């Protein structure tokens, strides 16, 4: 290994989705990315950051709206890249046995029956599935199913093995086990694959497995950092450098504008850029979740290391980041060098009784978040103090994708109802001012 031959090269690839009205939404900003032979690359990013889309562009499953992908120097489409994918949901055919599942890609290649069976049996043996050839997927545990997924992906001897969150549907122990077996196969060259590209939202997994880690920022997706993990394998989680890498990634992920130094390297990367947007992107969490999280943090002395926090609570970053994002957004939390620090407002919020909590949440949201300010202003200015959801939908539409707009609206309604900023009638899909506020608004009008 160690030869740095480029297998796949993405040149300024970007992806945008057309909108029914208005400009298309850019989900992946123009990005350069290369996959070299002999390396395991991990692509990290918060959920919804477009990392799966990027994977599908690299494999040729999805066409970029701009830029191009080269396979050994030739554009994908003119050549068929020799790759396969291990899916998060396993994507096995439930009506086929394990053996038949593994034979499917070989059948597609036109491999005749006898060599086909031989190859399938051999790879099943490699991944530790001999004896299960005639079983149906539903008879297997999650870990076993993913082994079938690996066998099916490896049986065509792909040059690059893509994996889309392959371990995230498994329990912790099974995932750990499967990860180390994969590494063993890779290190001993028992699989023909020359490079592995894994998409994950598990920071520890990335540092544990990868030779190279790429972190994506979102809205639109762009590469925040791309660095080599200078640790020999097998890697020890307790080592200082390991912890430093994890803190570093946390810092990059939690602070959109920061450009901290990569551990083990001197110079700062120049690529780090944050995206400025008009509306704050609401993380999809419940207000109660934020309060619970702050309470917990306060019980731990008000300051703690993010990675330790995630580990102790057995949270994935996808669970933790939205909570911290929301708390930061509302001014209840500060992030400093991979540590979370509760603010005085946050402490007050965590310990207030329910009515006071709502008030505090309302004040913070109206002061800091544009969307809520706008909703409130619109409702107050209308004579019937009610307006259809679609109105705000259209405003958000200009900034977010269709799907994200719906999610944003849902979260906004959730927060707004909680904080009594507005009421929402699910039947008519209309937002209206709460009665107390309505009276106030009328008073204002009269005064004017």
């Amino acid at each position, binding site marked *: 290994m160690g030869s740095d031959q480029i297998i796949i090269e993405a040149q300024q690839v970007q992806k945008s989705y057309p909108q029914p009205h208005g400009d298309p939404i850019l989900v992946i900003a123009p990005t350069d990315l290369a996959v070299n032979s002999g390396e395991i690359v991990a692509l990290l990013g918060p959920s919804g950051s477009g990392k799966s889309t990027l994977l599908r562009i690299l494999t040729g499953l999805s066409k970029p709206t701009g830029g191009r992908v080269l396979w050994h120097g030739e554009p994908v*489409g003119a050549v*068929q890249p020799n790759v396969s994918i291990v899916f998060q949901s396993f*994507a096995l*055919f439930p009506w086929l046995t394990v053996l038949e599942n593994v034979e*499917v890609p070989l059948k*597609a290649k*036109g491999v005749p*029956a006898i060599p086909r069976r031989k190859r399938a049996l051999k790879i099943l043996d490699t991944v530790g599935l001999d004896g299960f050839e005639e079983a149906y997927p*539903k008879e297997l545990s999650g870990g076993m199913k993913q082994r079938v997924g690996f066998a099916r992906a490896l049986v065509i001897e792909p040059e690059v093995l893509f994996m889309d969150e392959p371990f995230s549907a498994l329990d912790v122990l099974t995932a750990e086990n499967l990860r180390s077996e994969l590494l063993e196969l890779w290190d001993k060259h028992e699989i023909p694959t020359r490079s592995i590209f894994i998409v994950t939202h598990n920071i520890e997994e990335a540092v544990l497995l990868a030779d190279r880690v790429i972190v994506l920022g979102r809205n639109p997706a762009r590469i925040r950092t791309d660095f080599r993990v200078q640790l020999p394998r097998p890697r020890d989680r307790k080592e200082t450098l390991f912890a430093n890498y994890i803190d570093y990634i946390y810092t990059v992920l939690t602070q959109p504008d920061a450009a901290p130094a990569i551990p083990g390297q001197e110079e700062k990367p120049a690529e780090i850029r944050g995206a400025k947007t008009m509306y704050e992107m609401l993380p999809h969490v419940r207000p109660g979740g934020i309060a619970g999280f702050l309470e917990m943090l306060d019980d731990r002395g008000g300051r703690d290391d993010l990675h330790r926090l995630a580990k102790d609570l057995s949270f994935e970053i996808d669970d933790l980041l939205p909570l911290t994002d929301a708390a930061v957004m509302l001014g209840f939390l500060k992030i400093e060098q991979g540590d979370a620090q509760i603010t005085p407002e946050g402490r007050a919020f965590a310990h207030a009784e329910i009515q006071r909590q709502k008030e505090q949440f309302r004040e913070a949201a109206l002061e800091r978040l544009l969307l809520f300010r706008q909703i409130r202003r619109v409702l107050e200015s209308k004579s019937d103090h009610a307006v259809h959801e679609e109105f705000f939908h259209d405003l958000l539409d200009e900034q977010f994708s269709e799907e994200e707009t719906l999610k944003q609206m849902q979260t906004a309604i959730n927060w707004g109802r909680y904080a009594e900023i507005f009421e929402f009638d699910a*039947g008519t899909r209309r937002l209206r001012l709460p009665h107390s506020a309505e009276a106030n608004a009328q008073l204002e009008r009269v005064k004017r």
Partner: protein
Amino acid sequence: MIRVRTFARSVVRQPTWTIATDFCVLFLGLAIFYGVVLIARYWSGGAIPVAQINRSPAALPLYAFYSLARISIAYFLSLIFALGYGWLAAHNRRLEAPMLAILDVLQSIPVLSFLPAVMLALVALLPTKQLGVELGAIILIFTGQVWNIAFSFYSSLRNIPRELHEATRIYRLSALQRFFTLELPYATIGLIWNSMVSVASGWFFLMACEMFVLGKRDFRLPGLGSYLQTASSAGDTTSILWGLAAMVGVIVMLDQLIWRPVIAWSDKFKLEQVESVEVPRSPILEALRRSQTVKLARKKIIYPIEERLTLKLAERAQLPEHKRKSNKVFSYFLLFVVIAGVAVLTIYASSRAISLLREIDRANFVLTLKSAVATFVRVNVSLLLASAWAIPAGVAIGFHPRLARIAQPVAQIAASVPATALFPVLLLAIVKLGGGLGIGSIMLMLLGTQWYILFNVIAGAMAIPSDLREVASVFNLSSGERWRTVILPGIFPYLITGLVTASGGAWNASIVAEYFHLKDQTLSALGLGAEISRATDNGNFPLLLLATIVMATIVITINRLVWRPLYRLAETRFKLEV
């Protein structure tokens, strides 16, 4: 691997079973062969002007066989067509919307009013052969059963999980391999359930179209339907009972020999992550699985064919995309030609149809509108009556598993007898009691539609979570409150589904229910269905066309304005989400 087996009873019995089933399979093959010969000889024979229907019970097996053959052929044609239609609609973005719209409209057109046109066309095409009339009946059944199968296949294809789809793309499966590895298996369960519904409605239409009068011509096909009608006309109660028994016998046999094994077999196509506790079983399927003949046939015939086909197609699929373009252009060209052809034909036919409509005078227009109102009232009264007994009964059955165990099979058998088979019998009774067809036709509509409501309500009541019902009893709700807060909202989506189907069925049934030849007299009531039937009788095509158009328009309008909004409401507000 050596497996030590204890010499248990079951092991001893196993081979006996296998030999028995092998013989069965063999005889079945012979029987099918003979049947094909029989049909071929009968069809290619000269047209039988008016088939004499023999009322002796001894003739029943042959009649049952003829009816069954018609149903089977129509069903397989429907299946093939539906697979093609659904596949095209799901895979071609540009065709998707128009194809779905066509599906929607064709589903709403009363099939029975096509009968005369189709019959005349085919008899004209094949004047000397019995095949003409037979094909007419088959095409009619086909149009009655194809649409829901097509729609089921289409929506299954659209619902395939994304990652499964991507797996077939990343491994570059050919279109045919993708069809057999992913698409068809994924859609199988939906196809089977819809096939059962379709075949049931096939029986409904077959019973009606085996015997009918068109102007001076009397079309009769030997079969169970014509047997029952002949027996009723003659007032021959014994023959009626024999005929009904044969009908029920055929349907029960189909259920046991075909549907149950097929359902048990389809269990492996469930997209579930873990094995479920309750697996449907069928002794016949198990016997077939053990049969050596079947195993041999699979190994020697099916497997090699499949193998050669996949290998052949694999080569092409491996080529990079741009090298396959040339063929794509050709297929687009072909598609364009087909679409253009269809469009030209449609324009021509509809312009001719409009010129036909000009022949209708004002009085007939008014009459048609009056009839439409009468049938509209009748259909809705029958829906109300059906709901009035089926909702309480369905809820009672759904809430009490013990009652369900007794009531459900009975109801299923009762429902499986096509309403059109019972029409002549019921009519005889109505006439004897001195009732007119005005009220009688409502009873006839009820006969066909009540089951849709009953079965859907049972399913809905069963789906209400028991904790919701417990809440109702904890709070001591009165029975009125219980119905209002728990039961009705709980069964609402199911009830709507049942009502939609029942409403469509009732409109279709009006054609047979409002106008009837009995012995030598003709019974009729004011109604759109009677209008269609009378126009058929007199060979009055302009009126037939007008009445059909009016009926289709009403059905489509009701679907759009009433059922669809209710359906959406059911999907959003009244969905019990897990």
